């Protein structure tokens, strides 16, 4: 019991010394703790990192707190863990920052691709516009060419029409000139006839056969009484008239057709033969009067081509005739 009483002051003294040492140790600055706190403060104060890696920073802060409260025998472990947690928080924050930058780069890439797409679309639009303009130009050129071709075709047709018109006009003019020349020739012939008539002092009984125009031809008609009945012999008066006619036509160059006709009485063959003989008689008379045989041609027509009604004697007398057609 005595020993216990003696030991108590010693124990109390020892405890007081221990507490004093612990107090001194607590108040003594810990460089490791300050370094760790400084690292955490730097991380918190970094504007780029302050909001990042919240979980890792919380773990680091807890580890630092545990280190600050750690007893001496676990201090080393606590320091190691706190140091690693702080480093982990720093690395995690930087990794998260870089992750954000990577996302920003992705958005930037998307923006670039969008710009590229917009540029491609713009280029495609410009190219389409250019092609459209070229197409319009080609169409306009084609229309111009078509219009030119059409104008040339119209001009060519107009030229052809003008040429045809000119040709037609030339033909018409030539025909008109021919008609006028023929008219002049006829006038000349009439003048010659008039001259002949005047120079020969022709009596009424020896006059030329009656004449009328048939188109461009002059037709002299010997009446049926120029021949004896049923005969091809010319009467003296008819012979004289034919002489006058031969004299009139002698200097001409046109052909002279002689066509004989009868009335409808009697057989057709007989009428045809009679009309042929009478035409031949006239041909011979004209040849005798001086006309070239080459210009003369005789034919018998019989009862064809009557000029009057065969029902009356007067009509039949008119149908019995020889026509001398001068071209």
């Amino acid at each position, binding site marked *: *019991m005595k020993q*216990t009483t003696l030991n108590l002051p010693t124990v109390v003294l020892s405890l007081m010394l221990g507490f004093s040492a612990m107090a001194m140790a607590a108040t003594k600055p810990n460089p490791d703790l300050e370094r760790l706190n400084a690292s955490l403060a730097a991380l918190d104060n970094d504007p780029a990192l302050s909001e990042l890696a919240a979980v*890792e920073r919380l773990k680091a802060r807890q*580890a630092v707190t545990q280190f600050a409260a750690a007893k001496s025998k*676990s201090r080393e*472990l606590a320091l*190691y*863990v706190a140091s*690693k*947690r702080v*480093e*982990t928080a720093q*690395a*995690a924050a*930087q*990794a*998260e920052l*870089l*992750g954000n*930058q*990577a996302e920003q*780069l*992705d958005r*930037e*890439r998307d923006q*670039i*691709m969008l*710009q*590229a797409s917009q*540029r491609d679309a713009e280029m495609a639009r410009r190219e389409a516009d250019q092609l459209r303009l070229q197409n319009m130009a080609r169409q306009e050129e084609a229309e111009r060419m078509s219009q030119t071709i059409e104008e040339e075709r119209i001009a060519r047709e107009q030229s052809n029409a003008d040429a045809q018109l000119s040709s037609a006009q030339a033909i018409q003019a030539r025909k008109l000139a021919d008609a006028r020349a023929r008219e002049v020739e006829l006038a000349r012939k009439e003048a010659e006839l008039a001259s002949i008539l005047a120079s020969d002092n022709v009596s009424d009984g020896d006059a030329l056969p009656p004449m009328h125009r048939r188109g461009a031809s002059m037709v002299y008609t010997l009446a049926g009484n120029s021949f004896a009945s049923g005969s091809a012999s010319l009467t003296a008066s008819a012979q004289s008239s034919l002489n006058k006619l031969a004299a009139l036509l002698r200097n001409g160059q046109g052909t002279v057709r002689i066509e004989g006709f009868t009335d409808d009485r009697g057989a057709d063959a007989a009428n045809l033969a009679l009309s042929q003989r009478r035409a031949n008689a006239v041909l011979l008379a004209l040849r005798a009067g001086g006309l070239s045989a080459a210009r003369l041609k005789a034919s018998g027509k019989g009862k064809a081509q009557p000029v009057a009604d065969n029902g009356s004697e007067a009509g039949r007398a008119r149908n019995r005739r020889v026509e001398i057609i001068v071209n």
Partner: protein
Amino acid sequence: MTLSTLKIHTVFLFLLVSTSVLSAEPPTAELSAAQTAVMQAERLSPRGTSAQTLQAAKSQLAEAQAFADKRKYREAANAANRAQASAELAKAQAELAKARMEVDEKSARNADLRRQLLINTER
């Protein structure tokens, strides 16, 4: 030895035994957490600094396992805690390196795209 002294010693012995029994539990949770952290860091295929940190974590984990095998559970738990902290740091360092590489690649890619866009625009 008096009776009082005997009581004090008895209480002290009881406390000592109790502490020994409690510390006799193997640090399964610490070892498991450390192993998980190491595996997560390994998945990132760390290189450079992070590889060194991971190697340290592996060594610490092996040390923890060795302590545990020797039934030195307190030392095993301490080593496991170190291994977990080192492995998590290795993982963070690997992620940082990977993010830095990704940013570099994307920056270069964007620069190339901008250059191509500029060339095509001038064409």
